[in-house]
């Protein structure tokens, strides 16, 4: 099994999808001959031609508007937004058009074939416009699917599933892990299910929930916790919309404790959604308050990035507090 980093796995998934179905089209800023700012679309233009992999003008609203039109006409567009921080110019197209297309037309038309790929998250000293995690804005919108992989294997399997899924999907790629996360990835075509969480590790004392780049941070915190004799169950949600409530509920019924972590600011973050649902369904079994370990309620800072990020020590603290409550 070849070893790939996350970019290679994503490139590989795009290659497989384009080879299999000529309706799959990749476009975005600099994705053509340049291969995208992170090189996720390297060689695709050379392989599939300028008609199926091409550069767009610097207009996010245009990219997604165009993608909606293509998808409504039966194409399978995979649009790249260069940084998730710049997805907001396309916000109206996504939440008002993409998400409502099928509903509005009574399924006469839909844009289910659309996939929006976009790198998110901090840890690369990117400053306030290249580090944000805007997933929660979109989880508020029915009609979308939202997926976040945690490593190359997940990225390939989930991206192929996203491209082939019958609903529009926003695929958030943890850019800090693009080259940092390396692992074995099967060369062949495979898919991982959307909407299903992945129990990475079973445990009995506390449940830890996260997604994307935060899973690596959770891993480090778990090492500290297990050294302290605390048995952790670790769940990667993988999909935020829809999210796998049952898996998390089952785990919290077992452990009685929950820590949720994400990079985005706390207020209005998706952890709040999870906490509320778990509180509703596991109320009588909670041993301690559900804890959130998140980014700060500030713009994403440049020099204070390490302060801002929810690191393994902050998560470990939350675990200790929860267990010692």
């Amino acid at each position, binding site marked *: 099994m070849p070893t790939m980093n996350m970019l290679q796995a994503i490139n590989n998934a795009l290659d497989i999808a384009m080879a299999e179905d000529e309706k799959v089209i990749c476009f975005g800023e600099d994705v053509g001959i340049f291969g995208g700012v992170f090189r996720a679309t390297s060689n695709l233009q050379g392989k599939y031609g300028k008609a199926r992999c091409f550069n767009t003008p610097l207009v996010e609203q245009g990219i997604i508007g165009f993608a909606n039109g293509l998808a409504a006409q039966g194409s399978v567009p995979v649009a790249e937004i260069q940084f998730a921080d710049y997805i907001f110019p396309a916000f109206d197209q996504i939440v008002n058009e993409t998400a409502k297309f099928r509903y509005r037309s009574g399924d006469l038309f839909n844009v289910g074939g659309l996939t929006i790929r976009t790198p998110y998250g901090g840890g690369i000293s990117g400053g306030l416009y290249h580090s944000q995690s805007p997933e929660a804005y979109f989880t508020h919108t029915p009609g979308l699917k939202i997926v976040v992989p945690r490593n190359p294997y997940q990225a390939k399997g989930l991206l192929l599933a996203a491209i082939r899924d019958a609903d529009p999907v926003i695929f958030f790629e943890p850019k800090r892990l693009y080259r940092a996360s390396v692992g074995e990835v099967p060369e062949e075509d495979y898919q991982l299910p959307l909407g299903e969480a992945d129990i990475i590790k079973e445990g009995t004392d506390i449940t830890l929930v996260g997604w994307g780049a935060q899973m690596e941070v959770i891993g480090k915190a778990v090492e500290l916790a297990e050294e302290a004799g605390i048995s952790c169950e670790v769940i990667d949600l993988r999909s935020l919309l829809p999210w796998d409530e049952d898996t998390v509920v089952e785990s919290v019924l077992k452990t009685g404790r929950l820590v949720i972590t994400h990079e985005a600011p706390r207020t209005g973050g998706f952890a709040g959604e999870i906490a509320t649902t778990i509180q509703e369904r596991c109320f009588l*079994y909670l041993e301690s*308050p559900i804890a959130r370990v998140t980014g700060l309620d500030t713009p994403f800072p440049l020099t204070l990035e390490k302060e801002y990020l929810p690191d393994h020590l902050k998560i470990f603290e939350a675990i200790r507090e929860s267990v*010692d409550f």
Partner: protein
Amino acid sequence: MSDFMLPDIGEGIVECEVVEWRVAEGDIIEEDQPIVEVMTDKALVEITAPEAGRITRLYVDKGSIAKVHAPLYAYVGENDSGESDSGENGADENKAGENEQNGEDSRQAQLGDSDREPKRSDVGSSESSTPQPAPRDPANTIEASAEQSATASAGKGPYGRVPASPAVRRLIREHELRLDSIPGSGKQGRVLKEDVLDYLEQGPSDNRQGQTTPDKNRADEEFRVEPLRGIRAVMAKRMVESATTIPHFQFGEEIDVTELLALRERLKPQAEARETRLTLMPLFMKALALAVAEHPIINARLNPVADEIHYYTACNIGMAVDSKAGLLVPNVKHVERLSVLEIAREVARLTAAARDGRVDQADLKGGTISISNIGALGGTYAAPIINAPEAAIVAIGKTQWLPRFDAEGNVVKRAIMTVTWAGDHRLIDGGAIARFCNSWKGYLEAPESMLLYLG
């Protein structure tokens, strides 16, 4: 504040039963003071304090199971200055301190009722504070939840956990109760607020007893139920393993110990002069070690995959002791090197320790052959089960004065002792055990012959 983790006390033991707490929450402790007695699979072990300080919390109830590497009790060390701690481990210590503090803050904020909340005594100024135990809910501890399901009415919810609303949990914590000791009247054993209030009114006396007889009420009708634990549980397991995996070959013999008894009578005063009580056991052992030297296969074992014979160089003779806790088999090490007097001292030491159930792990490990002196309690014959992985065991029956013929055909009065061997028939056949037993018998019937082999 530190948690004392239950250390790994023996080979592969992962849990043990808390037999007796010698301290209570809030007690001041000295370094090396006995804190708790736990019963492992093999013996009672006394755990002592690692340093002086004050006990703040006992995580495991008497009669419950404690897990190795899980917290057993929490204490504040004498030199533990909490947050003001600085130095090499300062960072970690501070972290822990902050956690405590944050936990306290967030809890109080959460409850919004801090005056009813029993104040946790200040870690930072332990001298001035009264020794008040930290009022936490033991049901919150890591190891508690899983095991308790067996001991209390609790655990009808998913994964054996007790459902209770956070408000009820607060109430329980305020009164320093345990969630799982309160019978829940709600669905799936849910503990309701009324259950806690009723419990507080009636007092804990009745409910606490559930520890040793979980199904007390039901069991009263026909039989008394007692969980099989500790040494007894291990005996049950080991005996089944041994009896079902090792083909036992049984071999019985009579030994005339008239001479041996006489010899013992002569030696006894000398032994007593050296403050040692001389029983027959040291003589049996010494003779056994001599016989084993001639027939090493008896002092061997089969390796686990049964393709090699492992001969022991030492002759470590186990002696089955009927202790209060159950069957224990401590062994006397290197009998082949010891004098009879030295063996006698070892036997006395091990017997006393085993009767108390406080045998060191080292004394229980490494036996190579065993003697079961069932005759001390009565009974002429027994069919012993091998103490695996050893290859042989002998049960010694009681000695009786019986008529026997001497060389001239006259009837004489002789002290006759019966012995019954069990050997691992994969390793030992009838001939081997008969020859070996004859050799042993030779030394016992003519004990002076052992002199020839004085080292």
